[in-house]
């Protein structure tokens, strides 16, 4: 498709003028050129942000940017927290990739993470001092994946059996998960009356993901990156991945090819939910060592943005997750350091995201100015 636009003018006045600006779809672009446009968009957004920052706060924009950088990477501890949060966002993005590729709009990752977290916390509380460590971890991982998979598969079964809408269904499952989490929090609260679960097993550290190479979150990084690579291969090179693509493009074609569409829905959502549940395990066992309704912290929704911006490519998701977490940490930092309220920093985040998403337009379309007609004689 191609659209022609131009400044509207009364036809009788400017009858013979060519349109000032035309938009035409372009062919695919070389890899470097498209990333060049994206980077240019980020730089441009920083310029616009600088103007906005100065206009609103009269502060030196460079100082503000410096603060953002420091917020995310200012110290070793901050770097590791940024990495930790990037990994948990990435992990949810990886969970969403197969479902979205199938055009199954799973917006229930938030709930799937929470139930995975509950399962992990339950294992730590009830089995932490009972089972030997290796077995404990296996049980925790299996339990969290099963819980997430259960949360993911219920909407899939209903869709394949009765054609229900998965968007509403997965969304509602989030609220169920949040209520169950509240219940568990009051069941496990420690100290009693605090309405918090508190750190689980603070003395024995049973069920805490161990440090690796002296780094507390190294294991998180390795596990999540392995999952991202695995999912990339799963979607691109396996028969299951092929089935997911076909079902996502056209259910009729899938039936024609002899693919059992309902089965693919269920199987893929089992995987999607299980990976989301695993994120709950990472969050509880690998970072917070506690559980609350904020364990997923809205990342289940942020990950939808990650998945879309990366066009469901789990390798690209690494970059996008890092960017979003950097913006989040940076915004928090400037909000606290310069006594700005949250909105000011959110404006900056918004502007930067707007430019990045907007740059896709320039990758897919080209502008043709008046008088730039190609003479193909």
């Amino acid at each position, binding site marked *: 498709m*191609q659209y*022609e636009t131009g400044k509207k003018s009364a036809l009788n006045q400017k009858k013979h003028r*060519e349109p000032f600006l035309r938009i035409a779809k372009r062919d695919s672009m070389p890899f470097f050129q498209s990333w060049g446009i994206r980077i240019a968009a980020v730089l441009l957004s920083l310029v616009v942000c600088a103007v906005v920052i100065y206009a609103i706060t009269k502060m030196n924009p460079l100082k503000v940017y410096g603060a953002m950088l420091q917020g995310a990477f200012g110290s070793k501890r901050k770097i590791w927290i940024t990495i930790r949060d990037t990994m948990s966002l990435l992990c949810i993005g990886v969970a969403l990739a197969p479902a979205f590729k199938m055009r199954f709009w799973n917006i229930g990752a938030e709930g799937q993470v929470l139930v995975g977290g509950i399962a992990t916390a339950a294992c730590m509380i009830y089995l932490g001092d009972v089972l030997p460590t290796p077995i404990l971890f296996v049980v925790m991982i299996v339990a969290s994946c099963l819980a997430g998979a259960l949360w993911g598969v219920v909407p899939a079964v209903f869709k394949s059996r009765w054609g229900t809408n998965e968007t509403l269904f997965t969304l509602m499952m989030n609220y169920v998960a949040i209520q169950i989490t509240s219940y568990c929090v009051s069941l496990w609260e420690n100290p009693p009356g605090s309405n918090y679960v508190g750190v689980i097993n603070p003395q024995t550290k049973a069920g805490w993901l161990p440090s690796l190479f002296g780094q507390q979150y190294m294991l998180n990084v390795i596990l999540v990156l392995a999952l991202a690579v695995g999912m990339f291969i799963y979607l691109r090179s396996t028969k299951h991945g092929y089935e997911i693509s076909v079902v996502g493009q056209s259910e009729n074609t899938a039936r024609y090819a002899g693919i059992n569409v309902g089965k693919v829905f269920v199987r893929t959502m089992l995987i999607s939910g299980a990976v989301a549940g695993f994120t709950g395990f990472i969050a509880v066992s690998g970072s917070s060592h506690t559980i609350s309704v904020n364990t997923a912290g809205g990342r289940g929704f942020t990950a939808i943005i990650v998945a879309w911006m990366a066009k469901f490519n789990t390798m690209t998701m690494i970059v996008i997750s890092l960017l979003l977490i950097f913006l989040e940490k940076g915004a928090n930092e400037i909000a606290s350091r310069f006594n700005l309220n949250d909105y000011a920093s959110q404006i900056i985040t918004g502007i930067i995201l707007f430019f990045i998403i907007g740059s896709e337009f320039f990758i897919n379309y080209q502008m043709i100015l008046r008088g730039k007609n190609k003479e193909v004689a």
Partner: protein
Amino acid sequence: MEQHIAVQMQNITKTFGQVLANHNVSIDIRKGEILSLLGENGSGKTTLMNMLSGIYYPDAGKIFVNGEPAVIRSPGDAFAYGIGMIHQHFKLVDVFTAVENVVLGLRGRDANLKLATKKICEICEKYGFEIDPGQKVYNMSVSQKQTLEIIKVLYRGADILILDEPTAVLTPQETERLFHVIRNMKKAGKAIVIITHKLHEVLSVSDRVAILRRGEYVDTVETKDANVQSLTEMMVGKRVVLDIERPAAAHTERRIEVKNLTVVRSDGVQLLDRVSFTANSGEILGIAGISGCGQKELLESIAGLQKVSSETSILYSAPKADAPVELVGKDPKAIRDMGITLSFVPEDRLGMGLVGSMGMTDNMMLKNYRQGRTPFMERKEPRALAEKIKEDLEVATPGINIPVRRLSGGNVQKVLVGREIAAAPTVLMTAYAVRGLDIHTSYTIYHLLNEQKQAGVAVIYVGEDLDVLLELCDRILILCSGRVSGIVDGRTATKEEVGMLMTHLQKGDGSDAV
């Protein structure tokens, strides 16, 4: 007779990315004349006219309307110049009435429903249309919708009408009625352009024919000096033999036996009613009928994609097998697991036969991607097959990994037919295999079907062009509202006979007659 030039297009060039859709095309459109714009698929006919109707803007070249240079940037501009286009896909609001659709987007007096109704009736009378202004669009037949589109354009005062493949969706009678109206418009001094690739229509309705080939202008000829052969040669660029061979059916043996095939839609409408027939190896069985009277369901039932009622039996006899096997109740995978290769070229090529966003390679393995023991895809063989089909069938694509939906209609069909034949089937079913394809590609497809027939495949060909059915098929089964109204011999039957059977059920049920 003096001829006034309505539109002049000079040296028009238009590119889409790297594809050159039109290159230096110059044509004249005259008042009081019907001009046919003829060309194969992807030759740039529609693109050229879209630039006249304001959908695209040319990269280079000039357009003159009534001798004045014109800049057409939007369909609104086009209307201001009196240019109106009737697109292949109708642009109507289903829940509105005819008159509401006509005034849609207009303001002031033009949008007054009462006045509009009156004016529509005048237009109808003048040109010989028949339409009920108060009828809702969703209650209209395809031909009525098209009439409404034409009225919509005339109501806006168009003097230059462009019709994009107007007859593709019409029955022969409706086509005749449309041509009658078009001739009336010509008498009224309108300039009319018809985009088409049906040669006999070109010859019967137009005054002049402009021919495009691969985006380039070839020539304009007076229709009275042209014939089918000369037009084809200009269109294709080389001599084409326009005869369909029909080798004698040999070594025929029963392959598929359908008994009492009945399909009932979920709302209780009976789509197929006790259809019985056999399809034999080494012959082409044609299926004729007015569109939508059960052809789609018939093929999908055999392919295992359609739920059929309990009295149905579809028996498959493999070559050199003792006992036939029942296909009812098996899905496509189950049928394939039994070692039966049924190839099926469905009507909806990109929505069912292929995955539009995938390249040729990935589409090649759609039906046999399960091959191999590992959970991983084996892409080597499909890639080789894609290359081979691209070579053998001359598929025009920049590469075998370009998404197939970016190919033109004819090339999409070559990919699909190529894959289905490469599977070495025992039964090959095709639904409207040449719909929308140009003459050259159509003959390629007929040739491929004949090859399959001679190789001993049972070919089932659902078609709409009676001339082709009578030339190509050994036997023709005629469907009429979901029932078999007759099975005739393709060599002896006449067009009239088949046409009659398409609209009238014979007495008694049409059990297998041959």
